[in-house]
């Protein structure tokens, strides 16, 4: 991330802001979708986040922290969306077998693959916002514990324990799906 670009955006340069977020929007959409599992909610969360990034950017002291800072804003927006619609909601999935088979290749047949993925996603939908978030940051975004901690604003040790707890919660939720 170009610190000069961030500084220009901080001073109100809309073109710099556009350049700053242009390359991030797709990743933001994917992360929001992974956390929320709902297209409209994800879209709203990203829009809210972009507005918040623009609004709060002048307060960012360290341009090098932009990635963690902006991701934190998105995560917060997702959490708020999730809280707004209730944490125990389980969504009906609309996956087709071919799509599922591409996404989760295993030695099992297509029907099993679909069943596994639907079950796992249903289990994921049972998790609360914090559990979903930390799993997405680590497993989808590929962030290490230090990076996860930076995004969430918590110590690395806490991130580790929360990740472990989220994984356990997913296991328990998966058991309930069986």
């Amino acid at each position, binding site marked *: 991330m170009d610190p000069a670009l961030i500084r220009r955006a901080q001073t109100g340069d809309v073109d710099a802001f556009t350049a700053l977020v242009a390359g991030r929007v797709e990743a933001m959409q994917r992360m929001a979708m992974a956390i929320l599992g709902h297209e409209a909610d994800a879209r709203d969360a*990203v829009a809210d986040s972009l507005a918040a990034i623009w609004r709060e950017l002048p*307060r960012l002291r360290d341009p090098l922290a932009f990635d963690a800072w902006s991701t934190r804003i998105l995560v917060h927006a997702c959490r708020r969306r999730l809280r707004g619609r209730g944490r125990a909601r389980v969504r009906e999935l609309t996956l087709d077998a071919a799509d599922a088979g591409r996404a989760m290749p295993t030695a099992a047949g297509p029907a099993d693959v679909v069943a596994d993925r639907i079950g796992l996603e249903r289990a994921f939908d049972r998790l609360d916002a914090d559990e979903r978030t930390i799993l997405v940051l680590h497993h*989808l975004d590929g962030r290490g514990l230090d990076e996860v901690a930076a995004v969430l604003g918590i110590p690395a040790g806490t991130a580790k324990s929360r990740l472990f707890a989220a994984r356990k919660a997913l296991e328990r939720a998966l058991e309930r799906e069986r």
Partner: protein
Amino acid sequence: MTDRMELTDAAIRSMLTARADRAARDRFDPAAIVAAAGPRARRFGACSPLVGRVSIAAGGIAAVLIVAVLIGGSLLEEPGASHAPIGSGSAISPSESTPPTASASLGPPTESFRILSAAEAGDLIRSRSAARAGSLFVVNGQLVAAETVVTHCASEPCGSTLLADAGAGFVIRPVGDFGPGPWSASGPGHLSGTFVLRLSAAVDNDLRIVDFVGVLTTPPNGGPAWFVQDLLEGAAHNEGAYAAVDAWLVRDPFHPCGSDPRNPVVVYGCPTDDYLTEDKFQPLQSDGSSIGPAASIYLSSGSYDRWAQNPAPAGLSGRGVEPRRAIYLLWLVSDGCGPNADCAPPPPRWRIVGRFDPLPDPVEPAATEPVEAFPAASCPPGYACM
């Protein structure tokens, strides 16, 4: 769901990738986002203590980075809405006060809360102190002692405390009726942080008095208000902490009370159980029974009647109440045992001591409350004075 499936990192990653792949590829128009985003935050560290300022006293002590105020609403008065003074002097002490006035605004509150700059806080104080006496707001900034701004402490002239970079015309004093109690005559010294302040109609030596309630504990995500779950699960807080909580206030139906030999000062569960819940929750069931919320902040009996906006009955024969969502100011305090009780003090619990309601725009013309300037004789060092 197949029995053979194991939860592996690869399975989680694959599921999340497929889930993320379903994201819409919307194009966002940055110009539209910028236009809709509202006013931008002020930049950190733009001032210096000795930089002269055109506005009276506004720029002298410029260690303020972002001095911020959390107030209810967008600061825009809703037509026809009546706003309850939050934490007004008479409404703070549970045993001595009257409930806040009902408000017509019952919408989700957090989205409308925002952080103000010190300058905005100053405008609010100068223009609305009398009209909105008792209203709470939150400022994240710096309190500074100004020995040369003379007001009175217990009838004796003494130095005063100012909010840096907020302009002139007011001083800050401890609230007195709850919270950490009075400062010494020299004030809190240089104190930086996020504070809860309260408008008041009091004036001393032509300077408006603003009550200092306490230091606000803010959530780690940087938001101004906590959610119930986060407050319950977060790090332990010290007794005396304040927190703004976005929550639903609800009450169980009345039920018979037994005698309490401890004679507690604050009663729980008799005649009502009162809660703050994260989601809208109705303890009263359709069959007339009641259940408690799974995750909640348990409040002293009577909290709903006292702090809910427009308290309203609900359910069979009006035995229940309508949950009311707002930003409530909580104070972590031990309730004590009562004057005649023989017991160990109970552990501190959160108690509602105020509610953040929408306040009007502080930058509206303040025709009825003209801004006052420091008299030259009381001009503090570093301030531009008339």
